[in-house]
């Protein structure tokens, strides 16, 4: 699974740095290093008002914040891997 966190201007201002840090620790916590490839991406073209955009394989998930991070991670990452 490829996860790209947007580090474009808009997402950067809304906390890409924190989301990348959370993502790194969540991947380590679930020992998914072999299954998940984490990378950064320039603007995904979906700049929104709240949160950071991430791309999980071909799906773009918008508005990821530290508050909803765990929910997104469980649903999209763990859920996606379980399929």
């Amino acid at each position, binding site marked *: 699974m490829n996860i790209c966190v947007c580090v474009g201007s808009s997402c950067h201002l809304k906390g890409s740095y924190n989301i990348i840090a959370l993502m790194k620790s969540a991947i380590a916590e679930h020992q998914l290093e072999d299954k998940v490839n*984490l*990378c950064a991406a*320039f603007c995904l073209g979906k700049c929104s008002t709240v949160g950071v955009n991430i791309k999980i394989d071909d799906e773009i998930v918008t508005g990821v914040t530290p508050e909803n991070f765990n929910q997104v991670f469980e649903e999209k990452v763990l859920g996606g891997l379980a399929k």
Partner: protein
Amino acid sequence: MNNLWTDFGYISLNHVGEQLCGDRVEIIGDNENSMTMVLADGLGSGVKANILSTLTSKIICTMMANGMPIEECVDTIVKTLPVCSVRKVAYSTFTIIRITNNSVAEIIQFDNPNVILLRGGKSVEYPIISRVIEGKTILESKISLQLHDVFIAMSDGAIYAGVGKSMNFGWQRENIIEFAERVYDDTLSAKLISSLIVDECNKLYEGEPGDDTTVAAVRIRERAPVNLLFGPPADPKDCTKMMTLFFSKEGKKIVCGGTTSKIAADYLHEPITTSLDYGSDPDIPPVGHVKGIDLVTEGVITMSRVVQYAKEFLNNSDLQNMWSLQTDGASLIAQMLFEYATDINFFVGKAINPAHQNPDLPITFGIKIQIVHELTDCLEKMGKQVKVSYF
């Protein structure tokens, strides 16, 4: 025209307890024709010295730049400077270095420590003719330039550094030559050479300079063009034209902006890889890599920081530049533009990013154009040749 370029740089330390510097460096002219640098050291320290040296350097610079002979400049200075009520003299020493067509240097010196010439990193003697104008002994030299020649001018504060503190007689001109030869490297900018020497003086003064201390360096280097692409063109149909022009330019290539780098990468048929590494500064988005482009960064946030670094650099207050050591996108751009480049070509796209058209976002089209204006202004003040093309 040859392929040489003149790089100027200087830095001053104030007499301990003074807010104004009694030394003054003025630079005028453009690199294509002739550049004149004047270092003036006003009598005493503080306000009076500052006024004397400012008047001296400004008057000489303006007159020399307009082709007036040195006799007239000196005559004007002698007749214009206000007379000090305590010492009953109007006095400011000066050093003039004029570089013409990047091929000949003329040096005119009055009472400052003699200019040091480093050729290939070693100090060499140069012919000096002395003559008396208005009762003052003026030293004149004319030197044909070679690549990597470095001229180091200084106020007498530099050679008195350490008097009565870490040394009995200060460090002499010979010691400064030794020090300069030891630290010399072809890649050191004029500003860095000056900073290194002034730092050493400050150390000898134990952080409390007993006199205003200024070192100004002039360095002859090769021209180095850098091209910077910032933003996609207003009309998407112009993409190919913009990319063709950009990539056909000689020199280093920097691409700023996410969408912009995608367009550039598509043009080159190369993938973009974006690093997750924030370097030393989490405020600046990570850089990307595209084969065939020297540096790929995010746009407005990175460039805003570059403008900030440029302003601090010009303020001359930063002895240790943060950006010269860091590896984030903004610092890398600063290193390339401020230190490496002599000629800079900006390719600015005026497209409005639809994703940024949200009143809640602090990014607007206006910021981009403003950044380009401010940065151009700063780079020109650093003596760079800047061209901006809009698409």
